[in-house]
């Protein structure tokens, strides 16, 4: 299952549309890194609204993506984590250390804009 990645100005928006297998997640990582290079993006938003569950593989991979994008000079924001999923993740100790999370796409973009302007929330 390919995750569509759209370019919005200096940012990339990857919208997950259904449950992702481990292979899908690895593919997503490759696709994002390739896109950042191609478009010289400064920010990446990964929208996981459609996910009902997040396991440790997925959270580890998201952390990896954030680290890798940072090395390329881009900030990653995860948006759309559902309340039930957030609760389950916190319960299991999968807290996405070092990753910025925002409520939804709008918030995520605002966060990236703020970062760009040097203002901190």
């Amino acid at each position, binding site marked *: 299952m390919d995750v569509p990645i759209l370019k919005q100005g200096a940012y990339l928006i990857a919208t997950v549309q259904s449950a992702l297998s481990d292979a899908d997640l690895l593919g997503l990582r490759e696709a994002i890194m390739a896109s950042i290079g191609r478009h010289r993006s400064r920010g990446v938003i990964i929208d996981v609204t459609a996910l009902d569950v997040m396991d440790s593989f997925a959270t580890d991979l998201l952390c990896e993506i954030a680290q890798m994008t940072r090395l390329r000079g881009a900030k990653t924001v995860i948006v759309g*984590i559902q309340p039930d999923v957030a609760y389950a993740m916190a*319960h299991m100790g999968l*807290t996405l250390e070092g990753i910025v999370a925002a409520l939804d796409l709008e918030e995520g973009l605002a966060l990236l804009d703020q970062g760009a302007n040097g203002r901190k929330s």
Partner: protein
Amino acid sequence: MKTATDLQPEIATNSSESTKNTLRELVAHLRQNRTQLREEWLRRIFAAQLLTAMSRDEIFAEATSVYDSYVEALETRTLETLQAYAQKLSERIIPRGVETNEVVGIVLLLRDVMARSLFAKYHTDSRQLNDVLDTYEPAANSIAITVAVGFVRERERVIREQQEALRELSTPVLQVRERLLILPMIGLIDPQRARQLTEQLLRAIRANRAKLVVIDITGVAAMDANVANHLVLTVESARLLGARVIVTGLSPEIAQTLVNIGVDLGKMNTVGDLQGGIEEAERLLGYRVVPGSEPAGV
């Protein structure tokens, strides 16, 4: 002859011809003498001072329905109608404050009144009296159990509902500014309540698009490792929804407890009191509170 003491939809009796005849006679007798037996029953209810929460007219009306349902259950030897009736009756009388002992009491009184009238009718023929009682007693017991259990079940349902309502009431999530929520935690926080609190908060964060939450624990009755860990869990889940949490209202005692427990407080942003917490939150959200030119008239 089987005695039906468990809850079956049918009254278990011997279905021989003679038993059927006895039952028909029994039901006919109870129908014929309905008025005076009902009167006698009401007299006993008042004498025993049951159903004091209801008026005489109400008791009379309910007594009539109960009597008829009782006889019908005997006649059809099925309890379904009676079960449905018992539930409706319980729904009516529980809000009136009728207690379990009263409901069981009046059903047993009716059983007695009917039994006495059977004694009176058949006392000259002890063999026939035995037959009648063999038919009557298991049925009367099933009926008593059905009504009592129906009542208790309805009561338990009401209590559960009230507990739910109480829980909802005591954990309000309040929006005080755009993007700012306040959650005052008050009272005893058991694991179930803690979980419900967090789930409620997360839903509210999403619904109100909150960026900041102030959780005030001034009113928390007892801080222990469970509550503390749940607080941390709440802070972490909120973060995954893009909201930051400020915990306020830590008394020196609670602060000491938390340090002793060794809860990872690095993840928590804390301020001494609620006022301070709100001010900090407003500052973070970019609000600046300045006095207006003239007070509005306070």
